[in-house]
């Protein structure tokens, strides 16, 4: 069953509404309305993997995306795993530990083979805001290699490329991000073309989150340092991401999401300790001949994560059931 055709949603007359009042004071009109393109099709049982750097990694501190996507999908059940890593690049820098970036990609390969995702959503490249765009050709080559790697090790996975969201210029002494946003804007254009050439779904999160901000300081910031999002920021970011997928989120009060959110946070924590366990050096690295016997504990997270998935689905079903009765 595909979500966009869900008769249930139509029957209930759910409509897409911006969920939050929290808005950047001045929102430039989106250049291309996401509604004009086809929605991304989810299937029952889809395993969605998030891949990218800090903006995706920290989502797991808030658990804002998965509840919204779950609700938008109605009876279609999907599971989600967050493989994002702070300051990662398409080359695998942050996940490389002791080795060169290629080892980071090898580690990612292992995680993809473990998870067997059917959908991979990527958000990479925010570091280009601080580097000359001369780095773009290298970046796109790296991105192409990364997609190849995903297609090889997660055969059949559908890919979604997300552009990094804009930065905010907060009051001094925090830095002015005007130039960085200009870079990100042109980077987004290149990324859109790249996504098209790669036949992947593209979400222009840069524009959905307001595009290049008007000059001046932002009054109601969505980030805590100009770069990384606050809770309110993630609520908006998640809403926009679901919108960007061409899906509609039913009207719910944020508090109604809490029971699902709690289970999502619990699952994300378990999964974090599963895929990125501490003491990598001793468990799997060059000192595993000393304490590698302890690695047997790591797969013990798997049944716990499955149970946590079940609780998410149960919480979602409870909320949906409540909605139906209304």
């Amino acid at each position, binding site marked *: 069953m595909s979500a966009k055709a869900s008769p249930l949603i139509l029957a209930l007359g759910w409509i897409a509404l911006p969920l939050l009042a929290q808005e950047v004071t001045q929102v430039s009109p989106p250049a291309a309305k996401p509604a004009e393109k086809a929605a991304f099709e989810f299937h029952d049982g889809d395993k969605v993997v998030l891949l990218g750097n800090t903006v995706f990694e*920290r989502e797991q*501190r808030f658990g804002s995306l998965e509840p919204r996507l779950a609700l938008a999908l109605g009876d279609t059940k999907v599971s989600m795993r967050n493989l994002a*890593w*702070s300051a990662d690049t398409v080359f695998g820098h*942050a996940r490389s530990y002791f080795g060169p970036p290629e080892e980071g990609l090898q580690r990612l390969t292992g995680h993809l083979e473990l998870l067997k995702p059917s959908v991979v959503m990527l958000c990479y490249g925010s570091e280009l805001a601080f580097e000359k765009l001369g780095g773009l050709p290298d970046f796109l080559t790296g991105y192409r290699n990364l997609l190849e790697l995903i297609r090889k090790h997660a055969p059949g996975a559908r890919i979604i490329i997300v552009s990094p969201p804009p930065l905010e210029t907060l009051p001094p002494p925090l830095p002015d991000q005007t130039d960085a946003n200009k870079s990100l804007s042109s980077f987004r254009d290149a990324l859109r073309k790249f996504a098209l050439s790669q036949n992947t779904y593209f979400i222009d999160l840069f524009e959905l989150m307001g595009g290049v901000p008007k000059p001046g300081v932002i009054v109601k910031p969505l980030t805590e340092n*100009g770069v990384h999002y606050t809770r309110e920021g993630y609520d908006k970011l998640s809403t926009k991401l679901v919108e960007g997928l061409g899906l509609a989120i039913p009207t719910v009060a944020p508090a109604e999401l809490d029971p699902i959110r709690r289970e999502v946070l619990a699952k994300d924590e378990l999964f974090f300790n599963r895929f990125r366990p501490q003491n990598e*050096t*001793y468990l799997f690295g060059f000192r595993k001949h000393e304490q590698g016997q*302890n690695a047997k504990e*790591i797969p013990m997270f798997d049944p716990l994560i499955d149970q946590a998935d079940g609780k998410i689905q149960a919480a979602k079903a409870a909320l949906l059931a409540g909605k139906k009765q209304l």
Partner: protein
Amino acid sequence: MSLRLLVSLSLLSTAVQASQPKSTADLPDPNPEVQKAGFVVPEGIEISLWAQEPMIAKPVQMNWDAQGRLWVVSSTTYPQIKPGDGTKDQVVVLEDTDHDGKADKSTVFAENLHIPTAVIPGDGGAYVANSTEVLFLKDTNGDLKADERTVMLSGFGTEDTHHLLHTMRYTPEGLLSFLQSIYIHSHVETPYGVRRLMGGGVWEFRPETRRLEVISKGLINPWGYEFDRWGQSFATDGAGGEGLNYIFLGSVFKTSPNAKRTLSGLNPGQPKQCGLEYIDDPHWPDEWQGTWVTNDFRGNRTNRFHVTPNGSSYIAKQEADVLASNHRAFRPIDVRLGPDGALYIADWYNPIIQHGEVDFRDPRRDLVHGRIWRLTAKGRPLSEMPKIVGAPVPELLEMLKAQRKWTRHFAKQELRSRGAEQVIPALKTWVDGLDKNDANYWHNLLEAAWVREGVNKFSPKLWRDLVASPDARVRAAAYRLLTHRWRELPDALEVLTKGIGDENAQVRLWAMGVLHELRQPRSFELALRALDKPMDESLDFLLELIAREQTDVWLPLVIKGDLKLDDNPKHLVYAMKATGRSEGLKPLLDSFKAGKLAADDATAVLTMAGDAADAAQVLEMSNLVNDPAMSAQVVGLMDALVKAGMTRGVKPEGAQELVQAWLASPRAEIVHRATILAGAWKVEAARATLETILTAANTLPPVRDGAVQGLAKLGGTKSRDFFDQVFAEHAELRSLAVQGLTDVGPQIAAKRAIEFFATAKTAAEAAPILTAFLKNKQLPGVLANELKDKTIPDFVAVEGIRMVSTRGIKGPLEDALRAAGGVKQMNQALTPEQMTALVEKVKSQGDAARGESVYRRQQLLCMSCHAIGDAGGVLGPNLVSIGGSAPVDYLIESLLEPSKKIKEGYHMIIISTKDGKVFSGGLVQDGGDEVIIRDPANQLQKIPKAQIASRQMSPASMMPPGLTASLREDEFVDLVRFLSELGREGAYKIAPNRYVRTWKVMGPMDQALNDHIRHVGLHAVHDKETVYPWELRVSEVSGNLPLSELVNAQKMYPWFPKIARFALKLEAPGKVKLGLNAVKNVNVVVGDKALQEITPEITLDLPAGVTPVSIIISKEATDMQSLRVELLEGAAQAVVE
């Protein structure tokens, strides 16, 4: 009476011996009274228990707040979260509300943390290092509970949970600093771009701007960090063993990945230390002020260091211990001066440390206890805690004058929280009102500048006042501030011109630190002016770092001619040498040709040419060889040609004519190098000449070696057949022939080698051939194959086995040697029952003194690879505190099966190069263009990265198995007992005294040498031209050099002495006081003079540089069993030349 004595003695020996629990039944008594009874505190110090479980469990790191509350981070999850366990670790705030010297209130500020390893209160909450993240936990309603959690930074590595981000401290200006350790790789996004730090290092973070920068890199596990009164900072290392490390902007220490060069700590050979505090509180006696306190958590004690400026850095001298304990669960890991001036020590309380060598789930791990101990100075008044929170700004400013760090520190923190608008106007008034005649005037002014920095408002005027201070410490601090602020000083380059020429070396170092930040051609030109004043290690380090890391900034301009560095050729040579690039070579060779360079600069240029010269430059150099004016430089030039040709295959046009002419030279040193070049340059026409040279009876040995190399490099069946023919026809050249054959005909080489082994009389005879067979990956297999069903002498086989295992060579060769030589080895693995019995024997029968003499046997090789303290080999881990950290069963296992558990940092790395060579050893440096490893022969091997085909970490230890196989069981038991005592309270912990521990002792002298000294006088023992048979020796743990290990000079009438020598190194001229354990019948030679009078304490007036000192002990000194020399005073280091 005697019975009681016996009982108490045996109790003592149990306590000392039972240092490591063997089972949960053998754990120490956790009763705090028992633990307290185990403390040994020096006269005048009192210890009491301030807090204990359940108020606090497993304290990891702590910091006070201005209200006198102690914030402690605590983890019961360490070392690894269990599947299904929640995140349960805590930040706990401890308080002594009734001021009776004991905590009475414990509040859980935050929980749901995951192995948090640092906490520091501030900004209305606390910053916490929580595995991958730095959190800010805010208390919004003042109830001492965190209500809001913000991730301030994320992306810190967790590859090892005792290396996680840790040790949060405030800098003197109020910025946050924190450290990470060797296995951690961090990638952090900031509003200024991504910051990455691989391996250990020091971070600095300004919360309000979110700016995060790396200040220093490297160190193994630096859990101690603190600043002195003048803003200079030091780190201690929980796995590094070099005591205090002086941290300055740009400094890089051992183990930093890709570091081309690293700095050392101030006290090589120290036990590993954790936590660091600077004593600056009137509660402590005067002699404690300005000293440093840190913890030897392995040895269950707390140490103190006295630091003296030395050039741009420092010399540190260890003082008597502050605290020692024979309770094996006492693990002092953090140390802080408290609100009352007392010293508070966090006791992690655990019989088991580490989780690399002991299982994560080992039942002996303690998860419930934890203590804070409080040390006070008897009879001295406690300090009073000032009221800081809420105090008016002028009062807070007045507190900056306090002679107490606590007061100044928290006043600054409070001022910072008030913000610039409130603080700056009052600060101006305060500064204007400062008394210029006050002895503390300059320090007060420095505090004012730090306050400004804290509220992020730089004042160029105040800065100019500071930098004009007559006090060098203030000027150095001013330049340290300028590293953040040079953008706000329009004439920065002008003031830096002064700074780089300052009379004080540390001021120059910090001026250079600013130039390092500037990254401009002009700033580099300025930095080089440091060369016009005396240089030292830190200055040289930083200057070279700038030259190398900023090559792209300045080199293009030099090549274009827009930046001239050759006004002073020294500057140019230094800069170019640092780059190691061939484009930098041109101006240098020009200067070389023009004869502008001093001798050492010329040598440096030629070394660089070997690494970087291209074909045209090689031709240019070849022509210089033939230039009569260059006669004196021929050897250096040709060595450079050999290096360029052998390592990079660079050859000039007209190579054949050049080589053939040189081969006909009357000068042996030219012929020698020409033979090698003939091979490197593939001059086939020279083959016949090389063959003649190789076999001619009158050829000098080095020339003959060169001919072998040349022929091997020429290669082909011709070389192979020729070598084989030499083997058959020239008995005296058989070894050389086999060595040559290994390159051109491995199979034949192996056959001939075995024939040769069969006739060998000694292992030494076979060694060169064995070595030749281990030089690449293929040869060992070839030799192994050939050894099948053959017989060789057992001593040859043993030598081979030793070489194979110390080089980490896997494959069949070791077994093949064992079979062919019929070598039997002791059964290495012990059954659990055998292990238990042996552990028991160590306890009941082992004798540490006998064990030390076993340890010192030359053939066991212990000392050639391991040091105890600062004396001994560096290939293996330092054993200084092994007894405090390693259980007896672990020691036994490590001796019998070295590869089972390998200490971090001592893994063997095996590198294969593109030309098929194999190098193995301990990684020394992995930076820039080359990897440096220390091979099993203790030689540094530099391998250009471009040549590396593969590298791997070996699972095998560099320590060969079976080293102890020759020992009887009782000797083995004594040895283990000795090791198990090392670092523990008692005779086998290295005393803090600066004893001379590494010596050169005179070996057997021939008649001529004896006569020389007799005729010239004792001072001739330091003649530079005379080659004496010096041998390296190290002192015992006690500092004694046993004289029984020295030989008498039998013919040196009238002394017939034993002679031992060391050297003193000084950065600046100064006085040094030595202490001698005996003076009768003892003579001392210092530099080129024999001292007239020998007293137990000798004060020397020494120049900067290295001065040799020899102790000459006459045969008459019959009651002298050992020699001990101590550096009592002075900024000198004992070194071995």
